[in-house]
């Protein structure tokens, strides 16, 4: 870990401004991802701006009938919130499928959206990695890739986004609210928030440097059976091999977002149109351009089968 300076920002705007004016600065929320990465010198900010004291820890109904979730709301509090449990069961389930009780107590909503990949080569600073060190190459390609992405990959990077929460947010069409260094606000639909790796896998979201997430807004509830199915090698405390977040309506229509397969939560609206026909039809479209490796080809089958189980459970 490199030495760093630390400040507690007095306001959201001040935090954004301070960050924007220092290219080496980063925000710190729960620190459960950032500090681990700093210890390994995968992240090397020289200045940390603590955003915990900015009052961004509220959950409030919006005028439209949705829910505004403060960026600093802890995963535990979000999962256990009455309205979330009642109207956005998918989100609650996805959160509880992630990490452990201790981590969820610390992990924030914004931090969770921005958590970085779990590609093991990314974590080993001896290995070339375009995400960690742009232009150095990707050591995962041709290596051990059981966990890696099968779709939306590039020649530069085949890493996945490991967040469970983000899958639910994607299926629920959440909107990310931010404040930039110049004080301007914007609202980014979750669909546009995370990027595919392309030639620049080190750029994972559309956030600009210094742009602070203030809230994530959920549109009014859409009902349906809301399920999150996380498939993994052990029963808890493991990242998803594949996960499915689904909202299935009584008529068989619905939404699905898939985790563990891509650099971002994977959702294809055209595939959802096939849902009433069943998992095979929907999965076929979802993964139609998949480029798996020999190690992770099983994920194609696994998505289809898991989706089948989710649909069956929703109907049951």
């Amino acid at each position, binding site marked *: 870990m490199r030495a760093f300076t630390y400040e507690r920002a007095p306001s959201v705007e001040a935090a954004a401004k301070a960050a924007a004016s220092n290219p080496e600065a980063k925000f710190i929320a729960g620190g459960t991802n950032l500090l681990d990465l700093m210890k390994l010198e995968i992240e090397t900010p020289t200045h940390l701006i603590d955003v915990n004291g900015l009052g961004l820890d509220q959950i409030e109904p919006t005028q439209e009938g949705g829910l505004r979730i403060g960026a600093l709301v802890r995963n535990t509090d979000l999962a256990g919130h009455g309205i979330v449990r009642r109207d956005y069961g998918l989100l609650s389930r996805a959160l509880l499928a992630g990490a452990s009780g201790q981590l969820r107590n610390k992990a924030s909503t914004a931090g969770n959206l921005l958590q970085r990949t779990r590609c093991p080569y990314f974590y080993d600073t001896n290995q070339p990695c375009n995400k960690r060190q742009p232009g150095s190459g990707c050591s995962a390609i041709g290596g051990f890739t*059981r966990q890696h992405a099968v779709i939306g990959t590039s020649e530069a990077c085949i890493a996945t986004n490991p967040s469970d929460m983000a899958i639910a947010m994607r299926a629920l069409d959440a909107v990310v609210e931010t404040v930039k260094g110049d004080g301007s606000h914007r609202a980014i639909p979750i669909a546009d928030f995370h990027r595919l790796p392309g030639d620049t896998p080190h750029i994972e979201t559309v956030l600009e440097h210094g742009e602070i997430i203030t809230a994530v807004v959920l549109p009014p509830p859409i009902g349906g059976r809301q399920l999150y199915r996380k498939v*993994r*090698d*052990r029963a808890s405390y493991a990242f998803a091999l594949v996960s499915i977040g689904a909202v299935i309506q009584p008529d068989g229509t619905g939404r699905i977002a898939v985790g563990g397969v891509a650099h971002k939560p994977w959702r294809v609206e055209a595939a959802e149109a096939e849902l009433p026909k069943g998992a095979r039809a929907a999965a076929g479209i979802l993964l139609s351009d998949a480029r798996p490796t020999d190690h992770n080809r099983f994920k194609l089958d696994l998505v289809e089968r898991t989706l089948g189980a989710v649909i069956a459970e929703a109907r049951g």
Partner: protein
Amino acid sequence: MQFDTPAATNPIDQLKVVGRPIHRIDGQLKTTGRAMYAYEWHDPNTPYAYGYPVGAAIAKGRIKSIDVSAAKKAPGVLAVVTTLDVGELKKGQFNTAKLFGGDRVQHYHQAIAVVVAQTFEQARAAAALVRVDYVVEKGAFDLEKAKDSAIEPAAKPGEAPPDTAVGDFDAAFASAPVTLDETYTTPDQSHCMMEPHASIAAWNGDKLTVWTSSQMIDWWRSDLATTLGIDKEKLHLMSPFIGGGFGGKLFLRADAVLAAFGAKAAGRPVKVALPRPLMANNTTHRPATIQRIRIGAGRDGRIAAIAHESWSGDLPGGGLETAVNQTRLLYAGAHRMTAMRLATLDLAEGNAMRAPGEAPGLMALEIAIDEIAEKLDMDPVQFRILNDTQVDPENPKRPFSHRNLIGCLEVGAERFGWSQRGRPGARRDGNWLIGLGVAAAFRNNLLIPSGARVRLDREGIVTVETDMTDIGTGSYTIIAQTAAEMLGLPIEKVAVHLGDSHFPVSAGSGGQFGGNCSTAGVYAACVKLREAIAQKLGFNSDDVVFENGEVRSGNRSVRLAEAAGSDGLVGEDTIQWGDLSETHQQSTFGAHFVEVGVDVATGESRIRRMLAVCAAGRILNPITARSQVIGAMTMGVGGALSEELAVDTRSGFFVNHDLAGYEVPVHADIPHQEVIFMDETDPMSSPMKAKGVGELGLCGVSAAIANAIYNATGIRVRHYPITLDKLIGGLPDVA
């Protein structure tokens, strides 16, 4: 004490303290955080410095140069010592890979420098500034590819030969009406003990004191002295508490060597712990195996021919993973052969991990047994019972000292409800395919000399000192029980001090020999102390009775405190083993029963319940023994379902080198576990009549799970771990 005739009735047989379910005497220290582990030793008056290791970034080659200028200038840095600075060092007797010194890189993350600073954080930050220039060489990293070049290694003295053969296997196999010929693989596995390898080294002139985390004090002391080129007598080693080892702390590791060099260079005591990401590639691991098993049986279900061949790899000069061990002894069959071959691999050193040999060997053999039983249309429990042997099948003149595999299987089948087991794929519970599996457990009982010193003081307290270690197993407790039993005292009157090289050399902890051997050593020392007490009092030592804090002879009785006098009395001895383990085969036995559920859609396998039945001689303490067995069963679940060090066969290292990537079971993976100990003693094994259980509990578990998964799904997976990708293609359609 020379143990060369079977134990007769002795004071241990009273079982007033031994054999009782006594909670760990060190339990409170541990649960309240007062048990000091190596890195935690802290004298507030000592200006400790902190060393952070640098691991090699290549798997094989040479170091051209190391630039430490930036590291040396970094804040708080006191010293940087590189592998080039210290030059070639002698290698300890028990190490295959060199730990430090010289310009050769033998494996990834080999220690090549230590940076010492005033704080841990400063040392870690500075370590990242060390720049190394390498010459990379091509290495061999893929066992499958190296297999054909594997050689028959020379038999090491005192160890079993790589090959054995009895009768005419080929002919018998060729003419057997029912045969099996399959290949199984087990992956590299990591010990993943909770406490990392850690040491503090403090020099005082040419004398060195080291607090460390070691299973084997004397081995470490010798090997550290050799590595540092100092006299063993100048080295004081302490390891009173150890946060798990599983074989990973049997042999001296780099943390101790780096701490010693760092402390010398910095001129003050230095603490070094191996960071978790270094553990997989810097230390040792259980090597992967490829195993071919052939079994030929008659229609009556009797094994006529059995062959087990195994291939494993290691660094040059390394050893075999002896995966065929159990096959030489477990089942009858007149015609048999076993063979082991060793390939050269440039991965980190392969070495002992809990039940080396038998653990991976049974992972394969006990699937094969399930398979041949099925071919014979026999129940696998019945098949095992039918093929039991009471003599060493390679040398039928040699009986087992005591063997109750049949009892374990029968009791287990009854208690587990084995009769509920149906045909493969027949049982279902919602989305779960349910299956039952069984495997035999087998692990040899090893005998190693073990010494202890026992002191009786004028307060009537008995203090035991031995360099035996407690790696979480319960050594403190069973040693206290032994001394209490021998001297007729309640356990509260016994103090136990372990893990210090000033104490008599013991068996140490490993190979499940520690419990039986170390208590036998304490037994021997207590016999000496009893004699000393009797002699001092002028009692005839043949008829003295030690009971209720008193020593009695005829109608005379004296309180022990009084007998001790102001100077106290001491007994010291070492148990030495005669040839009972040559005339008789000493092994431990068990049966594992497992119920699994396999998710019909995803292929995720989850354990529903497990039972182990163990026949392992006298159980010295059912609480600590059970704790060993359930821990071992848990490890077997990891081995079956998730644990695998993934090799990058291009650049030669274990990729998933942290606890996020290498998945050991978590609580949610381990539901109901039950352990039954058969009521037995083995007088051939020691005066304690005990054997080991700590490794037995692991042996066979993974195969029982594999067999249960087969029973659930009808899919036979022969390559561990049995992850869902290996099942998913064969599961019923769900879409």
